[in-house]
């Protein structure tokens, strides 16, 4: 320990001397580090290398179904907090949750597309979309990678898909992941709950 302290003391004294002489002890290494940093920053970012028809999408899973959604439509991804169930709304709405001071609805995509309720546990993640018309979240059990999806490599929405899913499917990947235009899907007028009693 005393050796370490001795080395530290020597370094500090040298630094003190250098500062007194108007030189920074780190002056020479700094220029090298800065050069390296400049080189790194100036490197053309990977995103620009992406083909123009490529979408960066986040893949997630819910009730055993895989979906990919373009990153550009997402406002936030995070753990799903407490959800308050709302009586009288379609079952595809799991409930409402507080998000940045707003009360937003949480949608279960498989239920929205007509699947029976899954026996699995509570979803752990929340994928938020904030568009001009809606602020809404989608529940996810697992988050996977961010992938680049080439539009031309996508299969088209299957004719057997429900109408809502067909309308907002960008395409289907070979690993059965459905690429969705999530913002447009959540803005779909048929999703709006606007009812009165009586």
């Amino acid at each position, binding site marked *: 320990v005393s050796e370490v302290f001795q080395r530290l003391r020597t370094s500090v004294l040298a630094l003190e001397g250098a500062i007194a002489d108007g030189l920074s002890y780190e002056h020479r290494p700094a220029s090298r580090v800065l050069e390296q940093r400049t080189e790194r920053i100036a490197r053309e970012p990977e995103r620009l290398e992406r083909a123009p028809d490529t979408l960066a999408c986040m893949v997630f899973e819910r009730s055993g179904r895989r979906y990919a959604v373009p990153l550009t439509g997402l406002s936030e991804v995070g753990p799903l907090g407490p959800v308050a*169930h709302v009586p009288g709304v379609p079952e595809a709405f799991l409930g409402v949750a507080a998000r940045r*001071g707003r*009360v937003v609805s949480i949608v279960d995509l498989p239920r929205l597309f007509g699947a029976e309720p899954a026996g699995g546990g509570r979803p752990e993640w929340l994928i938020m979309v904030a568009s001009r018309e809606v602020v809404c979240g989608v529940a996810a059990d697992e988050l996977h990678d961010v992938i680049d999806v080439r539009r031309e490599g996508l299969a088209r929405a299957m004719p057997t898909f429900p*109408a809502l899913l067909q*309308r907002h499917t960008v395409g289907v990947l070979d690993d059965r992941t459905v690429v969705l235009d999530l913002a447009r899907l959540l803005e779909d*007028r048929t999703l*709006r709950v606007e009812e009165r009693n*009586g």
Partner: protein
Amino acid sequence: VSDDETFQLLCATLREEAGEQVERIGAVLLEVERGADGSRARALLDEAFRQAHNLKGAAGSLGFTLTAALAHALENALGDVRGVPASKARSLFDVLHQALSLVPATLDMQADAEPTPEMTQVIERLIESSASLRPPLLPGVPTKAPARAPEPEAAIAPAPPGAAPIPTSDAPMAHEPTDAQLPMHARPPAEPVVVRSSPVRSDQDTDPEAHPPGRDGGTVLTHRERLSPPMTGPLRSQEDSMRVSTKKLSALMAQVGELLAARLRTDQRLSELKAILSFEEDQLERRSAVRTTLHDYDQGARDPFLERLLSAVDEGTESHKELTRRLRELVRAFEADALQSTILSGELQEDIRRIQTFPLSSVLDTLPRAVRNMAREVGRDAELAVSGGEIELDKKVLEALKDPIYHLLRNAVDHGVEPPAERASTGKPAVSTLELRAEHRGDSIAITVADDGPGVDEQAVRRRAIERGLLNERTAAQASEQQLFELLFAPGFTTRRKVGTLSGRGVGLDAVRANIEDLHGSVSLQSRRGRGTTVTITLPLTIYVVHALIVRVSSYELAVPISSVHRILRVHPTEVLEVEQSTAVLVDGRPIALIPLATLLGVQADARGESERMGVVVIGVGDQRCAIAVDEIVGDQTVLAKNLEPPLVRIPNVAGATIRGDGTVLLTLNPIDLLRRAGTLGPNGAPPLAGASGARAPSRVLLVDDSFTTRALERSVLEAAGFSVVAVADAEAALAELDAGHFDAVVSDVSMPGMDGFELCQRIRAGQRTRELPVVLVTSLSSEADRRRGLDAGADAYVAKQEFDHEQLVAKLNELLGRAS
């Protein structure tokens, strides 16, 4: 605030708004000229058209007739320029810009000032340039609208038949077909007001020689009627002010909401800290007791180890005392800080709320003139007395109140003002006085609209209810006065046999109620035969902070606004009465229907022991009461009301939500919905027996119209005729609805933003599932050519809005659906 001051404030607001409208129209024109493509250009010009229309309405309502005239000419020209490539309308764009630059000057001129020759010339050039763009629709019809009315000598002449008056902001835009939508031969002359020829005032900074006065020279515009109070000169608000968009203020308010939520969290932390203090105080007490016991031990018998132990205990106790003392101080300081922060955040919230509030007078002050004109329209004499205009309300609430109050006044003029002879025969003053009064009532505001007319004819309501199948002979005879008055709020209900200019379509009161309930308010009606009718709107004073009772049913914790809670009871099962297969509890000696909240919400309630008392909350709005049984009454809390975000726009029984200190969401119940739901349940809370009467399910109609008012009107007409209606605002949404569900017919407008009704019709005909679906087009395009185009697009029927008759629409739909009407 005096009338004059109010008028000056309104003028200042108009000038600010007009400046923005001029800027917006100018920007649109520039973008179109710079080559915006077809659909974009059309959308832009539609917007400019609306801006000009709004400017015209606002200016006309405050007596700025020159501005209104200029805006009208702008509006007409913008209507004509739609559909014409910008390259072919260069000269018109020049004149449009010139006209825009004149708008501010007209707002600085006195109300009775004559237009400058430049204004006259610009208006004429606008008329000529836009007329030259119109292609002749029918052979032999002149393409150029007459430049001036045919009576040059009349200083104030009656409007020519068919001429459109300058609509003011009192006349909603959606009611009227625009000139651009009319075929040429049906268009009114392009001038907004009656035109006469007279010498042009030459005291302006213009050359009289260049614009010779008289018939062939300057055209002078004059009012159809003088508007009071007259302007006394250019008016400008002297106060330093800055315009901030409401969006920014709302964002600020949301942040304050967050601050309040954080405050609630602080309270929770304070409670936790107090609990720790209490625990430590208990521990200290125990420790002190142990210490005393040890000290009481016989001193002679103490060995050094015990002495050391005693010393350690003393030291520990002292530290514990010190810790507890500091903790207590911390709690006190925390309490003081929390109180201070409560006060400050409350004040901040109130200040921001006040920034967003405006006096009711900003809505009410234009109404006396509107009432006078409405009464004249139907040959009556009426005045409106307004009081309580100084009460301030949130701008959003004020905006939402405009239409309902206007509807109520139209109803009051039409139903509550007798013809002069009838008033004379009953000894009433010749001029009827309507009263519009706003006042504070506890934590709410009441706005009443009262007339001194004949009152509601209960027998007529009974007869009409029987005719429409709402009541049978027996129930009609037994119906109480209040039950009969409630029928007046049913969609499409009217006692009028004929549709009048002002009312009689039965679209007023139900729309009023819907709008007010959206503001978490309620509407009720009282009437005395021969004495008059009073409609009362009750609104919560604040829509942000709600004192609520928290109840639990099943796994749901829910908030009930205290303002609607009349009583909280603990009821033993033996106290529950059975009345005609319904359950009830006695409240103040009167049986009140008792319904489990779980039944109202459609959820499962907890199982309850037979002798267990249940929590009961008696809720009431207006004269309606209902006792709702809950699993637990949790407590009360002041909550910050928030709306749910789309797509959950309007959920039955739910008014909104609040975020609690721990981040969970608490739903706020809507008492009006709950009462209404209670009214639809059968005996013992069971849903009414569907199909028990053998009645078939109502036909499902998809209604498409971009105008809110038209949608509301047509929806109520169709619902009153027994159709189940889904209404959407555009053709794209209509196609999505058709994709998602089954419909028996479509009723669509033609002129809509984006896809129009013709194209929608074609798309429906092209669809595999929808090709046989009956489609009725309801439109203001009434020419034979339009009708043919509609039928060619595949429409089964074509109803012109000008001759809109709800019976015709219903009959046509029944015919297409093979229903007995």
